[in-house]
């Protein structure tokens, strides 16, 4: 092993150590990158330059604009009480089922996924909307945050999806095909989550906590008029965003801005927004945006340091030399992505791994649309795994509740990561699940 490779490998342990000791994740990533480049190049000046360049350009792109806008939309939606209304109705619909509100969260996420292209938007919105509701109803907080983090991944599997777009560009397959290919796997995952929750409610009731679904059944029922009044803003908002995207008025990336404005108008119409709460929402949006985006900046520094060490390339070379065969390579690929998913962000993993694996797999007869769906799910499992699990972080960043730690979120999301893994195996084994609608 060359010196650089050893540094690359070693940096992984240093970074994880830092994070475990409680250093801010962004600082841990950036400091490790700085040290790694310094050791490799023997020159701290070059380290500083890497840091400076990453700060300058890693989040400076149009797609990052949707982050504050979707966060803003989520906060306005919450302020307007739309979330509470949706869950009132969800509670009514699922009131007799143990774990019903968990199922409602998954369903609401699947619908929301059809209007958002980034998982962190889903995580941000439903942390605000669903977690307090579930805790109120007696759910175990750990389960509540787990459901939200777990089902947030639907945001990038069900189209539109930022990750699918990045993948499509990377390997030159039709983004339209990729979007359609994501529909069945997305719905499959949502259904598996719902089934999983119902099974957990029976088999491991302690994990769910003590939801008062039975008691709620005796509560006064909502009239149809109440339901209509509570659901009207949701329907209008989703209708505007959906209709806008599919009616050819704006792109999915513009949906954030339109959705935020729509939610603002709803909040104003409902008179739930005064100047003070409006300002608080703007400041809060800033906190969430800053803490997420600085992570992206630091993750970029880290993956650039890894690239300098040649670590990703060495891995690819080793793989080619080992002659694993088609399924051997796929399994190795998924395992590596899962491992990388514990420390790197989704986009970086795809940018590093897909170019390494797509050519050998294509040569062995793989369909690149299928490979794309496999990639997205494998990469998204990483959103839920420690120490770097972006979805869990977003939930934490949006959760103003010190009693729920990051550890609780990771543990709560673990069953959902497992269900994702099972779905991933199904999609690898039965390619028609992704290709059925397009081939």
């Amino acid at each position, binding site marked *: 092993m060359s010196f650089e490779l050893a540094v690359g490998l070693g940096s992984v342990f240093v970074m994880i150590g830092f*994070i*475990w*000791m*409680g*250093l*801010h*994740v*962004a*600082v841990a990533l*950036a*400091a490790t990158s*700085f040290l790694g480049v310094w050791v490799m190049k023997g020159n701290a000046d070059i380290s*500083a*330059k890497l*840091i*400076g*360049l990453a*700060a*300058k350009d890693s*989040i*400076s*792109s*149009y797609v*990052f*604009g949707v*982050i*504050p*806008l979707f966060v*803003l939309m989520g906060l306005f939606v919450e302020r307007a009480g739309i979330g509470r209304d949706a869950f009132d109705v969800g509670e009514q619909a699922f009131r007799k089922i143990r774990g019903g509100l968990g199922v409602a969260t998954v369903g609401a996420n699947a619908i929301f996924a059809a209007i958002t292209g980034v998982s962190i938007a889903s995580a941000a919105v439903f942390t605000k909307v669903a977690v307090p509701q579930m805790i109120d109803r007696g759910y175990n907080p750990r389960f509540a945050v787990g459901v939200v983090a777990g089902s947030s991944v639907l945001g990038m599997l069900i189209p539109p999806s930022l990750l699918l777009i990045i993948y499509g560009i990377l390997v030159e397959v039709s983004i339209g095909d990729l979007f359609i290919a994501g529909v069945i796997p997305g719905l499959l995952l949502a259904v598996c989550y719902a089934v999983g929750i119902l099974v957990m409610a029976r088999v491991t009731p302690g994990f769910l906590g003590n939801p008062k679904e039975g008691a709620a059944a005796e509560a006064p029922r909502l009239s149809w008029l109440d339901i209509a009044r509570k659901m009207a803003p949701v329907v209008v908002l989703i209708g505007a965003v959906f209709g*806008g995207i599919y009616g050819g*008025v*704006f792109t999915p990336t*513009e949906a*954030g*801005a*339109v959705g*935020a*404005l729509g939610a603002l108008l709803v909040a104003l119409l409902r008179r739930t927004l005064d100047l003070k709460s409006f*300002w608080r929402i*703007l*400041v809060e*949006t*800033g*906190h*969430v*945006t*800053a*803490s*997420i*985006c*600085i*992570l992206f*900046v630091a993750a970029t520094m880290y993956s650039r340091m890894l690239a300098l060490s040649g670590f990703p390339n060495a891995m690819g070379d080793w793989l080619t030399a080992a002659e694993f065969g088609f399924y051997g390579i796929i399994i190795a690929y998924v395992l590596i992505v899962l491992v990388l998913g514990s420390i790197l962000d989704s986009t970086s993993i795809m940018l590093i791994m897909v170019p390494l694996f797509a050519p050998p797999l294509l040569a062995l007869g793989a369909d690149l649309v299928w490979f794309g769906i496999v990639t997205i799910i494998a990469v998204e499992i990483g959103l839920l795994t*420690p*120490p770097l699990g972006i979805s869990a972080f977003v939930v*934490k*960043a949006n959760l103003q509740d010190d009693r729920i*730690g*990051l*550890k609780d979120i990771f543990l709560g999301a673990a069953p959902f990561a497992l269900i994702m893994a099972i779905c991933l195996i199904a999609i690898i084994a039965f390619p028609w699940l992704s290709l059925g609608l397009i081939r």
Partner: protein
Amino acid sequence: MNHTTADRWTPLTGVDRAIGLVSALLASLGAIWTLGLMVLINLDVLLRWTISAPLPAVPEFVALSITGIVFLQLANALRADRFIKSDALAVLIARRFPRFGRLTSVLFNGIGAALFFCIAWATVPIFEKAWRQGTFVGAIGDITFPVWPINLLVIVGASLVALEYLLHAARDGRPAP
């Protein structure tokens, strides 16, 4: 460990208050900028849809803005203890070994300060170059936006974050009352 604004036990020194004021001010700018982006994009969509007259170079402007918005708001986010961390183990250790916990806390806040000073310092030549060469986004003949103001915001924002980290380090370095 970091303290939230609410449970800060040290008397507010002048420095603390000044940094707090400046970071709140910058964060407000960032908040208004975000709101501006929302309005701008909606306007772009509306004009394009109704009279086929989209605003020029909106994607370029959004791409440029996001870095500025983030660095304007970072210090305030740190002050509100919103930087993401995984501190289950650290809390446990700090409870068992308070002095060791305080030491790592000072050390880690020191690392944070050094790192963000480094970001600010490394951005100075980037700023100088953008200023000297008139680096822009957009297209000449259409509309162009200079890049240097964003580089300047990175320098200011990162420096403020570094100061805030130093403040945390100084506070955690004191013995418990």
